[in-house]
């Protein structure tokens, strides 16, 4: 394959600068020693990171987002595994329709889901509750969990299971000792991708979160709506740092490309 020429590399440099600029700027401003938004050059300070500690609503929103992401992703994976096994192994009437239904939260705008959940939860008495948040987040992250568990269930070598059965293993033992360990990588990466998506979700959550149940993105958004000051840049810098660490770990462990494209490009088609 031919190499990139100098023009291509110059374009590439500009493109990467464009992609990184807003992210780096947030982290840069977060270190300002001033009481207002400015780009620190010679003096740097951590005062705005210390200031986060004086705003308990950010701290509690952070823990709420963490729990919400962990719980809803775990439940989404637990629901996805049997569904993925069914879709991967059986040809049954309604299979295509069901797959499309379970993937539909990717297609429906989160704005529409947010409105639908707000109406629904208010009617059934779950309005503004953490339980409502969990239910809604399970739905929006399920496609990510399903896609990755499905990919590993499809790639599973059935002959290993047949060997176990012929050696006298019962159905439960096969499931526990053979099938689940084999789909585990898909399960873990599905959980991780679901978690990140839940942790960052704003458009839907902003409709259904009440003052006591605001997630971190919702808290940040409402704060920015009122005024933009260095505090929100230091909070954002922390969120970016956490996400970047998670990203690098995930990329090392599973390959980001495989998680996002949904199939392994290195294994061909």
């Amino acid at each position, binding site marked *: 394959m031919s190499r990139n020429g100098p023009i291509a590399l110059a374009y590439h440099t500009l493109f990467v600068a464009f992609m990184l*600029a807003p992210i780096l700027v947030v982290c840069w401003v977060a270190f300002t020693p001033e009481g207002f938004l400015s780009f620190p050059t010679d003096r740097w300070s951590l005062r705005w990171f210390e200031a986060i500690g004086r705003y308990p609503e950010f701290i509690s929103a952070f823990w709420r987002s963490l729990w919400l992401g962990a719980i809803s992703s775990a439940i989404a994976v637990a629901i996805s595994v049997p569904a993925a096994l069914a879709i991967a192994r059986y040809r049954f009437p309604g299979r295509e329709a069901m797959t499309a239904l*379970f993937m539909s939260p990717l297609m429906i705008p989160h704005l*529409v889901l947010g409105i639908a959940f707000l109406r629904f939860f208010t009617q059934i008495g779950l309005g503004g509750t953490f339980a409502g948040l969990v239910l809604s987040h399970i739905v929006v992250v*399920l496609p990510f969990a399903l896609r990755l568990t499905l990919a590993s269930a499809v790639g599973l070598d059935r002959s290993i299971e047949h060997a176990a059965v012929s050696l006298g293993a019962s159905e439960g033992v096969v499931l526990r000792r053979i099938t689940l360990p084999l789909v585990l990588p898909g399960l873990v990466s599905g959980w991780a991708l679901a978690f990140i998506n839940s942790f960052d979700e704003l458009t839907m959550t902003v*409709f259904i979160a009440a003052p006591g149940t605001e997630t971190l*993105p919702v808290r940040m958004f409402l704060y920015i709506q009122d005024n933009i000051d260095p505090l929100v840049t230091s909070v954002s810098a922390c969120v*970016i740092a956490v996400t970047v660490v998670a990203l690098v770990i995930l990329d090392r462990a599973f390959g980001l490309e495989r998680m996002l*494209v949904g199939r392994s490009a290195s294994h061909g088609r």
Partner: protein
Amino acid sequence: MKAAPYLLCLPALVLFAGVVIVPLGMTVLLSFHDWGQYKGIEPVFILKNWQEVLGDSYFHEMFARTFRIAFFVTLLAAVFGAPEAYILNRMRSPWRGIFLLVILGPLLISVVARTLGWALLFGGNSGLVNKALMGMGLISAPLPFMFTETGIVIALAHVLMPYMVLAVWASLQRLDPQIENAAVALGAGPFTVLRRIVLPQVMPGILSGAVIVFALAASAFATPAIIGGRRLKVASTLAFDEFLNTLNWPLGAAVAMLLLAALVAIIWGTNRLVERRYAQVFA
């Protein structure tokens, strides 16, 4: 065991029937309900909200703005994202993976944080973008980016760019490099190879990326809300206002449902077009 697959899918089915289909149905109904400042939501069946949304010039202007922004975001993403995916695909092994991570990674970084970055870059006369443009002598006076459609388009193009790169990247993986080599061996210049060999083959990827970017841009919330401010409304921020400030839920539901219907029509139409036009590529 005929029932086995259905039993395995049962938890997901119950969840989606109860927590997706029912709420969506309720929202469709909600858009036909009546609402008054003092009486609240009245569960009757009237067309008032739909007539207002379809007939009022305020809503026409707002929907036109929403789709205009989505169109330009899609255009920017396609024009700049597709070449980048091609360059990325031609890179050597360690760099390829590193830059793929750098370009796709922002997809997973909080939209609020990324938009905040653009607000800082645009902000006021001291905004870095204006300083840089004036420093290069491209403009003499600062351009307004905050609270303008231009600002929303640039920030949204950044937020959604990874989807386009991802879609084109995926279609490039299917491309047989031998065809390019064959064209070169037959005397085609690099530009001809790009135009006659690569572009036609990645076109389905660009189109499917465009559909994703358009749909997400038309329904984006955080970026237009932060960059556009309270005055420059798009469909999603208007629906948000109706639901959480004005409390006219039926009208907000009608706005959201119309947006959904328009998006479904556009996506379906484009998919039909792509399938017919590129049947031989998929076959």
